[in-house]
């Protein structure tokens, strides 16, 4: 039966099994491939999205949970995500780039919830995301930078 999935403000009509993980509905059915598969078991955060603003591992959340809710992915845009993108650019953060969609979404949720996150706050949110290339120190620095950019812009 067809249902609507709302992603980044756009509605997609899809016909899927209710128990298909949201990740695969987004990637294979809707066709937005920016959200990545890393582990399938909520361990690496590559598949991170926001559902009604809440940071969620889409690999482990059935698509049915997201019907009627607003999903935010790396293809989207929000003020905090844009500050983060700018900071990521400035810090030349990514290496292979694969995990960075999830890193940026996780960091967006952090900035949405916390005005001036401390190192500890950053560790708490971002330690759910694995970067096999090991760009952690740059990510942390870039999150602080994004906050600074945001504060400058006000």
């Amino acid at each position, binding site marked *: 039966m067809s249902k609507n999935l709302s992603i980044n403000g756009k509605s997609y009509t899809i016909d899927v*099994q209710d128990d*298909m*993980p949201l990740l*695969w509905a987004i*990637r*294979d*059915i809707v*066709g*937005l*491939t*920016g*959200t*990545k*598969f*890393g*582990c*399938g*078991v909520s*361990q*690496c955060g*590559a598949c991170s999205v926001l559902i009604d603003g809440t940071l969620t591992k889409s690999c482990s959340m059935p698509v049915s949970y997201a019907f009627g809710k607003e999903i935010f*992915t*790396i*293809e989207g845009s929000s003020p905090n995500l844009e500050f983060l*993108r700018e900071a*990521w*650019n400035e810090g*030349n953060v*990514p*290496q*292979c*780039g*694969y*995990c*960075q*969609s999830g890193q*940026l979404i996780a960091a967006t949720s952090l900035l949405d919830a916390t005005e001036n996150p401390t190192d500890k706050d*950053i*560790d*708490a949110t*971002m*330690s*759910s*995301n*694995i*970067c*096999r*290339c*090991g*760009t*952690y*120190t*740059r*990510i*942390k620095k870039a999150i602080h930078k994004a906050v600074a950019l945001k504060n400058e812009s006000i």
Partner: protein
Amino acid sequence: MSKIQQINRRDFVKLFGLATGGIILGCNISSDSKDFIPQIEGTFAPNLFVQIQKDGNIILMASRSEMGQGIRTSLASAIADELEADWKFITVQQATGNAKYGNQNTDGSRSVRTLLAPMRKMGATAKAMLITAASKKWKVSEADCFAENHFVINKNTSEKIFFGDLVEEAAKLTIPDEATIQLKKVEDFKYIGKTLKSVDLKAFTHGTATYGIDVRIPNMKFAAIARCPVTFGSVKSFNANAAEKTPGVEKVFQLDRLVPPTGSFFGALGGVAVIANNTWAAFQGKESLEIEWNYGENHSFDSEKFKQTLTNRIKEKGKLVPGSTGKVDDAFEEAAKTVEATYHVPFLVHAPMEVPNATAWFQKNKIEVWAPVQDPQTARAELAHFFEIPLENITVNVTFLGGGFGRKSKSDFVVEAVALSKKIKAPVQVVWTREDDIQHSFYHATSAQYLKGSLDTNGQVTGWLQRVAFPSIVSSFKPLSEYASGFELNQGFTNNPYNISNFSLENAKAEANLRIGWMRSVVHIHSGFGNNSFVDELAFAAKKDAVQFHLDLIGADRVIEGRSEFPYDSKRMKAVLKNTAKVSNWGKTIPENHGLGVAIHYSFYSYVATIVEVSVINEKVKVENVWTTIDCGLALNKDNIKNQLEGAAIFGMSLALYGKISVKEGAVEQHNYYDYEMTRMKDAPKIHVDIIEAMHERPTGVGEPGVPVMAPAICNAIFNATGKRIRSLPLVDFGLV
């Protein structure tokens, strides 16, 4: 290899039957000089790597795979620098797998080392032709013109012409003789040796970079394969009833193992394949298969028992390796003190964030593949071999790699995709689950090492005996290879930097019961761990400062190993160590429960010295600080090199703390990131990277050399903090994390 060839117009017309376009060139950086780039109307493409358009935009071809090492940016910057191009006009295009681009095998930390000079020449040739074009327009001599920031400038009149406006004229010119091409002086570099941000930042931060797993072809299917838990086991029988009923599953069938010919290629493991209309359905279908396996001869393999076997073997005399010198037995006899230790490294796996995957479309006598491969030419040749399709009818498109670390050098997943596409007569993407990746890889070998050293009354090392045993990479190409090979021993064992007159290296038997492959830094992980741990033990026994002890052991300035075109220079080794000691304030007072550890290692022709500071509180280790110095010769892109070294510190830390693949009844016991763990942000140390200024030296490796130092530096720091010596990785086995 970088000679630029001119092919005259008539040859081109004859070869391709095209009459349009300007100059046509081949450049025999390639091994196949018959491949030429057809001229596209309105562009100037003096060689395979440079295409200049009328609007001034320049497309540069990246011949090596991008897996996070920043190679697309690095290679492009070398061309752009010599071309005097404005960076904002540069875009980078990924080359398909084809010998016309020269060797494309992206491993061994060799891309910049081997390609900097030819890429510079590509840029310089294009620049020379733009200058000639401008000089003709102005009717002045070429010597009166120079190029700067995307313009050719007339020295006498200061008139300037935009590169794009010279395209038409330049395309009519003949290629200048290679001997006339002038390269820039180091002092004049604009991009080389500076910092350039990745050309792919925008794609990476917007989720628009296409990795292998993101490839979408109309009407493509998705596939998962259930492979035998035991290496090289086969399907006895299977029941697909439940799998076939899984919504989205379209076909289930057996896939036979493709055995590579001796000496080359990787083949495919085979198993039971599930074809579906989405990835999840394929995964679900695979989970619900009931398969009975013929486990085969690797069924009895047990990694714990194997560790014991190797440990027993290195207690006995092994095969003496050439390069051994002096008489260690006499040295031990006459010693004031001897020290012995045995070290172990377990099997390891790469676990790149993007799992192995490939998309293939097998059509009549034609194959097209889209895949995250480090070595597209081998993948292409392998497909030609297994599917008996002419090489020229096989296209291997190289996507972004979501990490490689050596795993994606092995194209077994590409072979699988093509075999599936051939069978179902449709394009298909095979995706490994993370469990597949952890359990069916080409593993970094396990190793055991026994070391014995002797000290004289002054605390000088007089003898060094090292017995090593680890399954060889060669076993993946030649079954029954039961001893580590010379090229493996030459990764830090035969060529350690120590000046010891009695040195004996012995090689003990180690058979392979898993597919053995190479992982970032390869055998240097073993040699770096054994050598640096043992030097630290000797320093302690000699009651000497570890840094000074290392320096003394390296000894006088000399060429340690001069066979290659990159002589191994003891002075440079000492220089990185001295720098790291200085920036880390080695010798300073550190807090209680903290410890410092040092390690040095030479790999991929680069010199690295690292000092690690740990704290050990309630028997838990935290890596607090990492100071690393690298001398990689000419540093092409400084910030990128720093990023690589930061990443290598984390990679090395992950393997030291958590890295362990264990095998019971022939099957890998780990599954996913919950039992094959990675360092995470909360545990990431502060990392300080220094790059030695060596712009007049040739560039050497960057991607790998930062890894081997980490495990020994951490273990040495733990010893410094606690007096507890860790000789067997990983630390998690000792409850230390």
